[in-house]
């Protein structure tokens, strides 16, 4: 055995003899290896994209909402347990009677009729049919309509308000958020939130207005909401929140509606509640699964400091506290600890229901995109389904991804096979052309394996060069797919190494047959070959 360099030079010298044929055979290998690298990059890209989407969807997110959806609960801390089974709808007549009673009650307390109706319609964000079918009408507080004139009961007065609808009760405070953040291990971030519907207009041009979702929040929200990107400006700063400044981050959709598509509104002023707010940023989505759309609550929305909301509206309540856990597997445990902590902080006795609702993102996701009927059934069975959801979702996505990957790998394999046939063809030509040389080398003492090695190394050199080129083209192709078709790809150095190894193996495989033909030549006949 000589050094690999010896065989490399031997192979190269031989290949330079038939340049055109060599180039064509090499092209075949290049295409095959390129297809392999590109498909590996696509597969990996899909894998990472799935992971990103899952994280963007908030696999590690817990949302604590004021009020308790499961009103009649008397024992225990898991609101979902109340829905462990599907509950048949109540009698519609009974529902209408309760609705009327609630309306009378609110009128008696001096609230304006149109506000009550709007609030009842809004319910807990559920369609009336869904409210009806749950059979539970929530008492709704008109302070959820900031456009109305009202006085503001403090959170303390409202504590224990377990009959309130989801998000409508005023049971959560900023201190609750601080306590969750500081007292529960494994909590990564906790952001307070007040959410209202709000009408906003461009300062100086009241005709440019939009009705959207207002989120009073804290500076850490972008850490919780993965998949956010800021095309203009940045998110609220800690300072702006601490000082309750009148600054605003617009969702991409809302910004486009106010200022025109793609415009940069940073530095402009927007009027909310007759107050000027300076736009400091625009938030968009990095995720193909979540493009900004009307009513999406994230990008058809505006974000201002929660402290500013409290100051301007003279509030102290929170609608939600959004929590992320350091590890996605921890959400169930931490949800339990949050429940215990808040029950203790709110002084809720053993026999009393929670005045808040803790939901993990898994529960949210299951409900999303389902018809209300289906969502209710799913929600009712969440206790058992929760532990499966994220894993199952990711498993089924990955299964789909594997199918696609298998298809691509199949294409790559066929290309490689065709490339290998091309190389074999060239080698057979080479053996025929060089029969005399083979005979000479045999006469001078080459053994059969020496001859075989020579031709195999020729094939390997050819395939290696083709493989390196193919790896390069594969990377380019992957980048092109990402650039022009927005497919997510990820080229790993390992896949390039693998591709080149595959090319070398292809060289050996396609070289073996021509090489053995050469090695079996009869030296006398070969020497006399013309």
């Amino acid at each position, binding site marked *: *055995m*000589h050094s690999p360099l*010896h065989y490399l030079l031997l192979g190269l*010298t031989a290949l330079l*003899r038939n340049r055109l044929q060599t180039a064509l055979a090499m092209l075949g290998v290049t295409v095959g290896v390129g297809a392999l690298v590109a498909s590996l990059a696509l597969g990996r890209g899909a894998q990472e994209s799935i992971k990103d989407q899952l994280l963007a969807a908030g696999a590690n997110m817990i949302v604590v909402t004021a009020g308790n959806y499961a009103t009649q609960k008397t024992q225990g801390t898991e609101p979902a347990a109340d829905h462990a089974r599907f509950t048949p709808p109540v009698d519609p007549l009974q529902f209408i009677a309760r609705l009327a009673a609630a309306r009378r009650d609110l009128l008696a307390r001096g609230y304006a009729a149109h506000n009550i109706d709007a609030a009842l319609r809004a319910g807990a964000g559920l369609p009336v049919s869904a409210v009806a079918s749950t059979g539970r009408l929530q008492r709704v507080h008109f302070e959820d309509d900031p456009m109305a004139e009202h006085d503001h009961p403090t959170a303390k007065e409202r504590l224990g308000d377990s009959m309130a609808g989801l998000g409508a009760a005023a049971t959560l405070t900023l201190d609750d958020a601080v306590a969750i953040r500081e007292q529960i291990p494994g909590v990564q971030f906790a952001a307070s939130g007040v959410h209202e519907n709000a009408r906003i207009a461009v300062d100086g041009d009241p005709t440019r207005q939009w009705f959207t979702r207002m989120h009073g929040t804290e500076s850490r929200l972008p850490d919780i909401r993965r998949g956010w990107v800021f095309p203009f400006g940045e998110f609220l700063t800690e300072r702006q929140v601490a000082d309750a400044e009148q600054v605003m981050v617009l969702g991409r959709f809302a910004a486009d509606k106010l200022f025109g598509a793609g415009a940069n509104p940073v530095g402009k002023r927007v009027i909310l509640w007759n107050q000027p707010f300076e736009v400091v940023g625009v938030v968009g989505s990095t995720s193909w699964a979540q493009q900004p759309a009307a009513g999406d609550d994230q990008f058809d929305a505006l974000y201002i400091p929660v402290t500013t909301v409290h100051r301007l509206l003279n509030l102290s309540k929170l609608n939600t506290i959004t929590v992320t856990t350091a590890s996605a597997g921890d959400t169930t445990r931490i949800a339990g600890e949050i429940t215990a902590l808040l029950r203790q902080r709110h002084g809720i006795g053993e026999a009393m229901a929670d005045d808040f609702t803790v939901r993990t993102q898994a529960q949210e996701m299951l409900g999303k995109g389902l018809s209300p009927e289906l969502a209710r059934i799913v929600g009712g069975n969440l206790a058992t389904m929760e532990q499966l959801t994220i894993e199952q979702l990711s498993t089924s996505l990955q299964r789909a991804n594997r199918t696609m990957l298998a298809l691509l790998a199949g294409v790559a394999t066929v290309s490689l096979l065709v490339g290998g046939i091309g190389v074999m063809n060239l080698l057979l030509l080479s053996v025929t052309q060089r029969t*005399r*040389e083979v005979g*000479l*080398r*045999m*006469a*001078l*003492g*080459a*053994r*059969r*394996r*020496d001859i075989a090695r020579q031709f195999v190394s020729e094939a390997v050199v050819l395939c290696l060069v083709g493989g390196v080129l193919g790896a390069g083209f594969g990377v380019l192709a992957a980048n092109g797919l990402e650039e022009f078709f927005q497919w997510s790809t990820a080229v790993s150095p390992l896949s390039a190494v693998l591709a080149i190894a595959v090319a070398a193996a292809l060289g050996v495989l396609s070289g073996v047959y021509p090489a053995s033909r050469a090695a079996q030549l009869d*030296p*006398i006949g070969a*020497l006399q070959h013309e």
Partner: protein
Amino acid sequence: MPVISLQNLKKVYKLGDNTVNALRGVSLDIEEGEFVAITGPSGSGKSTMMHILGCLDRPTEGHYLLNGNDVSNLSRDELADIRNRQIGFVFQGFNLLPRTTAAENVEVPLLYSRPVLPASERRARALEALRAMGLTDRAFHHPSQLSGGQQQRVAIARALVNRPTLILADEPTGNLDTATSIEVMRLLQELREKQKITIVLITHEPDIAAYGTRIIAVRDGIIISDKPNVPRRVSDEPEALPLAAVG
């Protein structure tokens, strides 16, 4: 001990239903330092003899002892080793690799000798063999840049590079003009006289055979005459040219 000892050597080829008796019982001893010219018309069996002597082919019957070892029944790869270490070939068509320098051509037999020689050692021995042939300044020329005589001298350097005991020259002057042929024959004579290398020359030209110390005539697969010869000297040639002018 003779370098070559053939004992009742027979070779039968089967061509379809016909059998061709190329050699029909050849017995022959060649001693070290002999310069044997084997002559005969085409179809006489001299090429077959050459192939068997060169360990490129095996006899159908009989024995071939090379340096005392019976090589009649060795495997292909064992024969390749014998060719590599003990036999130097000089062919009619030179058989140099194209687009390959003279030095690289001379190195080819060293590539297949074991243990493997380091590249620097191979190169040194190739250059040494080329120097002995007076081709030092042509070592890095390609065959296409060399004259016929120079090409044949490169081929002789290649035959000598592995220090064989036997040189087999198959019509070495067939492609050369008279002056160059004489020069090549003078080189072969020198090898025999200075290095005691045994030379077997196959030719159909009587005046080339005349350079040998012994002339064997073959016809129809048997030896018809085997006579010692007073070798013709290059200096006998009236048209002999000085070496420098031959090139």
